[in-house]
């Protein structure tokens, strides 16, 4: 293995208004290795990568790439040098084809200086063949699932023949099968001498794929070690700076009467004849593969989409839900899956975000009661340990975990009886994750009924009293906490349980 470094970032400091995002950190990456960069949200991983590719300008420090000191101001410069990045948030052009997305901005031209679409398609096909990616380059991007879009993004990053590829949470939206494919690709890239900087919150993945691990915490460098000299508990301790004893602290809660009953709910291909009950104090897990229809079930119950047929009963009474506000009036809350698209209002303050749903309770006669709002907001901030310099801070400046806590408080302020939560800890660091789990558990203990969608098996197994499993829009089975195992759920989720 080559001993010299392809990338040396030294003494990097980067500040934003009121926040020191990176404080004198360093990162040294060898060619032909997978270097995992881990830390809680807000630790500074993504910021450092954005400094590297030229999206952010560092305040001080040096970056040496491939033996040359560089100071990038545009992402295109990074690509020219041989650094490409798979971003955490996908940015596809939905109307264009897969091939057009991959070669966006560097389309092959024909003799007339026009885009040579046929050549572009061939190039994409060759790329897919080489890396065994099962996609058709001629398909429109918008027709793909999120997982396939992620594969396109990965293929695009590889197509630059970069010397270093940054992967920021590349597996957050893909299923196990695609993860295997990605890991095969990563190993091939590594063997060709490419350096991979791998950012992830998923511990098992980190240990499966990485050669070296660097840990950041609160904008500071903590350690860099070979992966073989660390284990999961040691890594978590380094990330959070404290011992995490209970990853999934679901406490015993008294299970009461049925609060929510859904009968034969139908909507499109992803919600087919779904029926279930949910009791007070219960956490009902909704498991399944990506695209099984779990999110759609929640959204249909909540009125984001109109149900085609079926009944929803709250406390034995039938409720008509046409719009989310009807569901809220019936005592429901929905913490949505996509924090950016349907959760946060980025340019608004933490306070405004908190009170988006509960404002009617705090505005008698239409006039907002600022004193009560400030008091309630401070209570939420303390109770959920939301880290923000002030309630006036724009929510987009908070870390993902803290944004999620603000959204949790948005719903708690409406005093719901039924909480539906969709991937509550996606893209959130371990510390905030366990805090969110504790909050959910406490809510169940207080007698609220919780319906939780999660793609993380330990979360589903650890938190749920009962688990419903979905496959292609249908509920394929129900397992109790006692009899739930990963294998059993996977069988139901893949629809391979017919014999059982």
């Amino acid at each position, binding site marked *: 293995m080559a001993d010299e470094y392809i990338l040396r970032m030294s003494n990097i400091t980067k*500040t934003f*208004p*009121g926040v*020191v995002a990176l*404080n004198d950190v360093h990162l040294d990456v060898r060619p032909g290795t997978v270097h995992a960069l881990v830390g809680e949200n807000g630790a500074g991983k993504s910021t450092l990568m954005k400094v590297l590719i030229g999206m952010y300008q560092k305040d001080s420090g040096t970056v040496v790439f491939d033996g040359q000191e560089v100071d990038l101001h545009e992402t295109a410069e990074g690509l020219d040098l041989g650094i490409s990045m798979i971003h955490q948030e996908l940015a596809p052009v939905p109307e264009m084809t897969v091939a057009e997305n991959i070669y966006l901005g560097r389309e092959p031209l024909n003799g007339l200086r026009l885009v040579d679409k046929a050549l572009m398609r061939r190039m994409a096909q060759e790329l897919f063949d080489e890396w065994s990616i099962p996609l058709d380059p001629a398909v429109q991007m918008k027709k793909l699932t999120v997982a396939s879009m992620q594969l396109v993004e990965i293929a695009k990053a590889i197509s630059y023949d970069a010397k270093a590829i940054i992967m920021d949470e590349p597996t957050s939206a893909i299923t196990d099968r695609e993860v295997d494919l990605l890991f095969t690709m990563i190993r091939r890239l590594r063997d060709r001498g490419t350096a991979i900087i791998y950012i992830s919150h998923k511990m098992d993945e980190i240990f499966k794929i990485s050669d070296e691990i660097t840990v950041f915490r609160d904008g500071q460098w903590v350690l860099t070690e070979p992966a073989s000299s660390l284990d999961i508990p040691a890594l978590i301790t380094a990330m959070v700076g404290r011992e995490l004893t209970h990853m999934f602290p679901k406490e015993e809660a008294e299970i009461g009467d049925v609060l929510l009953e859904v009968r034969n709910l139908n909507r499109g291909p992803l919600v087919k004849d779904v029926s279930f009950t949910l009791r007070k104090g219960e956490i009902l897990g909704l498991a399944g593969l990506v695209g099984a229809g779990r999110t759609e079930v929640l959204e249909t119950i*909540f009125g*984001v989409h109109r149900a085609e047929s079926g009944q929803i009963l709250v406390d034995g009474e039938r409720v008509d839900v046409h*719009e*989310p*506000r009807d*569901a*809220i*009036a019936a005592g429901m809350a*929905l913490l*949505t899956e996509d924090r950016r*698209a*349907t*959760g*946060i*209002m*980025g*340019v*608004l303050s933490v306070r*405004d*975000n908190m*009170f*988006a*749903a509960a*404002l*009617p309770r705090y*505005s008698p006669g*239409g*006039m*907002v009661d*600022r004193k009560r709002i400030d008091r309630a907001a401070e209570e939420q901030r303390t109770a959920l340990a939301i880290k923000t310099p002030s309630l006036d801070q724009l929510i987009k400046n908070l870390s993902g975990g803290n944004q999620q806590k603000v959204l949790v408080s*948005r719903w708690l302020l*409406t005093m719901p009886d039924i909480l539906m939560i969709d991937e509550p800890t996606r893209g959130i660091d371990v510390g905030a994750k366990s805090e969110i789990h504790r909050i959910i558990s406490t809510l169940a203990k207080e007698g609220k009924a919780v319906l939780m969608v999660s793609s993380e098996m330990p979360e589903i197994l650890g938190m749920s009293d009962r688990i419903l499993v979905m496959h292609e829009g249908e509920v394929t089975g129900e397992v109790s906490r006692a009899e739930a195992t990963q294998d059993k759920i996977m069988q139901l989720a893949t629809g391979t349980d017919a014999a059982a």
Partner: protein
Amino acid sequence: MSTTTNAPQDSATAITSRFNWGELARKYLIILILIGLIVLLTIFTGGSFIKTQNLINVVRQVSAIGIIACGMTFVIITLGIDLSVGATVAVAAVVSASLAQTDQASVIKFPGLDLPVVVAVAAALGVGALLGLLNGLLITKARIAPFIATLGGFTAYRGIAYIYSDGRPISTLKDGFNWFGQGDVLGIPVPIILFALVAVIASILLNRTRFGRYTYAIGGNDQAARVSGINIDRVRLGIYTFVGLLAGLAGLILAARIGSGNPTLGTQMELDVIAATVIGGTSFVGGIGTIWGSVVGALIIGTINNGLDLLNVSPFWQMVVKGAIIVVAIIIDERKNR
């Protein structure tokens, strides 16, 4: 630079306070610009710009624009636009004028009609609100993009003003009506008083009421607002009705000012209104904007108009200067929100 300390806490606090100053300066930059303009114009005009009577003139001239800009702030915060306000001004002007003619007029729209002035005032506001409501219905129920829906109003409403008035000014109006454009209270022109009143009400509406907070929420993320239970259609309907009502008030003021309801009133006014709002920091990013910003924006427009007049700058060059200032305002806004 060479004397930076190594203690992380110290550097962190230093950075915090330095950025807060920068933030403060950015936030009130527009006021600094206004003051700068006033100082410059005072110097270049040899002091005539700063005279009390001239300053009152500046504000009075810009009152109608400023009043509508208060409503446009709501519209642009929600990522909408209303191009029809200038034409709404004309409809409100001709309709209200037709209800306030004296029997001395040579052409009388409704002969023998002698209604109290308050009816004409109510008609101006009512007609404005109605046209605004129509825009709102097209946008929320027919799901037409605000730009297109109000572009339709921009043309059609102007046409209605011409049809209603037979293309002629409706003149010889009652004194009580003309008071809204020409009168004063304790030396302060009525349009200025109305402008101030509207600014205060709009500010309370935006900051202190649920309606106002929902306006920000919709602009911040309309999908999240809907999931949060906000009736976004009703809020948007309210916003377009409100800006229409304010355009009606502006139509009343302008007709009263010249003592006649002219169907050409408010021509291209929507551009000045949008310019005032945008110069005032309301952003096409959505979810960002303040009433006081739009008020200052309107004052800047008025200052430029008046100052360039005093300096005998040709109207053609005035257009170029105004355009340049709008573009510069947008560039500043872009940087601020980066």
